[in-house]
């Protein structure tokens, strides 16, 4: 082994350009495969993050018109949901973690000289965690006391806070909402949100639904949001919620129009499948790149064998067995491949380290070289090295020593 390494070092030194080209090919392949998969992973994470901006694996439900007759009642009947309907299912549906009604209206907000028309939602405290409403430092979302005591407190979207207050802190300030004074208790921390149902959260504001009802005389929710304790059970929980409300409000549990549901967990599942296919595609391209690189390596090893034929002949005449010759070339190829792989990997890692500074993270995410990719890449490289090394090595070991020595 030591002799082989010594010889390898000698050969590599003697053939600088060729060694460089070989290693470059492998480096390029490795950089390509690991970066592509790293960007794939980054994109996946970014998609999940953006989707999570809407909520943490929640379901959003809208009451509508019945489309199936139920117990003697014709179709086309409007379903109206009151707060006590939601209170009734809260704690009575197995697997349901949280539920919040949402009352929406456009309200007039006045602060100082500024007047804005703002989409306002009245919600319960659990709405904050379900919809990933994370407050900025020093603030909070609507809490149980606000809700129970019907306080006039408000949680602002970050864009809205900026429009009203500029750079000065909003928490603790009073604003006028539909001519009533409200205390700002929190401002939304900036989040990526790629989908919404009534405007992005950063331009909205949220108040306790008790306060909302008192202010507007709204009796029925515009929609409600709920979350399963375990996101894998979301399908069953949806059925149970439909059944429970259907029984209370007299509509068929299978009536998709009486209660329209948007299951955001499906989106996460779709991303998983989509990204798997996407990564497989990138992976195949990467592997092909490596194979092409491997062909290059193989070619070069062939040239090496030709150039070293005399040496091989001498060694065989002196009693070197085939596997020694074979082993020597295989180890050489593997080492060159390994070296190229290591360099390529280092480059890929540095690109991943530098990329977030380019400011594109919001759109494509930050590339992440995952351990799985690392394993796959080294595996692919190993196979390429083995294939690339095997054939020239076999040819070398098959040579007739007499013929080889005379070349």
């Amino acid at each position, binding site marked *: 082994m030591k002799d082989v390494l010594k010889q390898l070092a000698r050969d590599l030194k003697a053939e600088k350009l060729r060694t460089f080209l070989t290693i470059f090919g492998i480096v390029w392949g490795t950089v390509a495969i690991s970066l592509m998969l790293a960007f794939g992973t980054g994109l996946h994470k970014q998609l999940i993050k953006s989707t999570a901006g809407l909520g943490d694996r929640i379901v959003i439900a809208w009451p509508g018109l019945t489309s199936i007759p139920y117990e003697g009642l014709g179709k086309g009947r409007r379903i109206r949901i009151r707060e006590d309907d939601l209170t009734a299912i809260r704690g009575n549906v197995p697997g349901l973690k949280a539920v919040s009604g949402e009352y929406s209206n456009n309200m007039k907000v006045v602060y100082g000289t500024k007047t804005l028309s703002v989409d306002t939602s009245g919600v319960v405290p659990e709405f904050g965690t379900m919809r990933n409403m994370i407050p900025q430092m020093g603030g909070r979302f609507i809490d149980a006391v606000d809700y129970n005591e019907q306080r006039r407190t408000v949680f602002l979207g970050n864009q809205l806070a900026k429009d009203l207050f500029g750079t000065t802190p909003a928490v603790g300030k009073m604003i006028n909402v539909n001519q009533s004074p409200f205390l700002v208790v929190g401002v939304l921390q900036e989040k990526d949100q790629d989908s919404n149902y009534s405007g992005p959260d950063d331009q909205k504001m949220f108040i306790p639904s008790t306060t909302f009802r008192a202010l507007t005389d709204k009796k029925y929710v515009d929609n409600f949001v709920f979350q399963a304790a375990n996101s894998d059970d979301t399908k069953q929980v949806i059925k149970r919620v439909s059944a429970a409300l259907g029984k209370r409000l007299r509509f068929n549990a299978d009536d998709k129009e009486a209660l329209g549901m948007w299951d955001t967990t499906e989106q996460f599942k779709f991303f998983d499948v989509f990204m798997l296919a996407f990564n497989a595609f990138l992976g195949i391209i990467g592997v092909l790149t490596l194979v092409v690189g491997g062909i290059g390596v193989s070619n070069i090893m062939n040239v090496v064998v030709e150039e070293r034929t*005399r040496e091989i002949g001498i*060694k*065989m*005449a002196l009693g070197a*067995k*085939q596997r020694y010759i074979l082993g020597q070339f295989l180890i050489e190829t593997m080492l060159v491949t390994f070296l190229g792989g290591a360099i390529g990997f280092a480059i890929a890692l540095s690109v991943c380290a530098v990329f977030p500074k380019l400011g594109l993270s919001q759109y494509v995410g930050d590339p992440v070289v995952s351990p799985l990719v690392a394993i796959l890449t080294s595996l692919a490289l190993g196979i390429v090295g083995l294939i690339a090394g095997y054939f020239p090595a076999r040819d070398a070991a098959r040579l007739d020593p007499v013929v080889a*020595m005379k070349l």
Partner: protein
Amino acid sequence: MTTKNELIIRMDEIRKVYDTGKVKVEALKGINLEIEKGEMVAIVGPSGSGKSTLMNLVGCLDTPTSGIYEIGGQAVSGVTRDELAEIRNRRVGFVFQAFNLLPHITALENVELPMLFGGVKPHERRERASELLERVGLGDRLDHKPTELSGGQMQRVAIARALAMEPDIVLADEPTGNLDSSAGGDIMSIFTNLWQQGRTLVIITHDPALARRASRVVEIHDGRITSDQATNAAA
């Protein structure tokens, strides 16, 4: 020479046919040759006589098409390439006209090479290789590469290498062919010394001076042995 001596080489009706697909060339047409331990045999003949083919067979670089060949009592037929390599490694020490040293490694490493293939332990290899190089007068050239040596010195490295595995025979193919007469003379003296120490040598040569030093000269013509006689040196 006494007839009681151990037989190192035994060839019985050896034929070698090269089949190129279109043409069949019969290079050896029935060679019968026995070489005893301690002999120094010169094989002479014009080019195209089958000398090189015979040398390849004796050196186990190739196997005969038919006939029986035994080296040191071991039959060389129906063996795999690896087994043939092992026989070469243990039983034959080669000295070539073109030296055939590996150019990138030192004299010492060149002499170590057969022992590396023979599985000799590293420190033993090193010790034995330097001892052999000293014996051929190159004790001060251990770390020189072949390109830093003269032709005569290179051939002496090759002889040291040939002796590394204590082979049954030393097989030399035109060992003085690439050397000037002075260096050639040195090499011939080394061969004579080896013979006097009891080694078995087979030398293929054009050089009448070298052939004269052998104990026995075998002439080969057109794939057949035409003459086989002891020389004065045999006395």
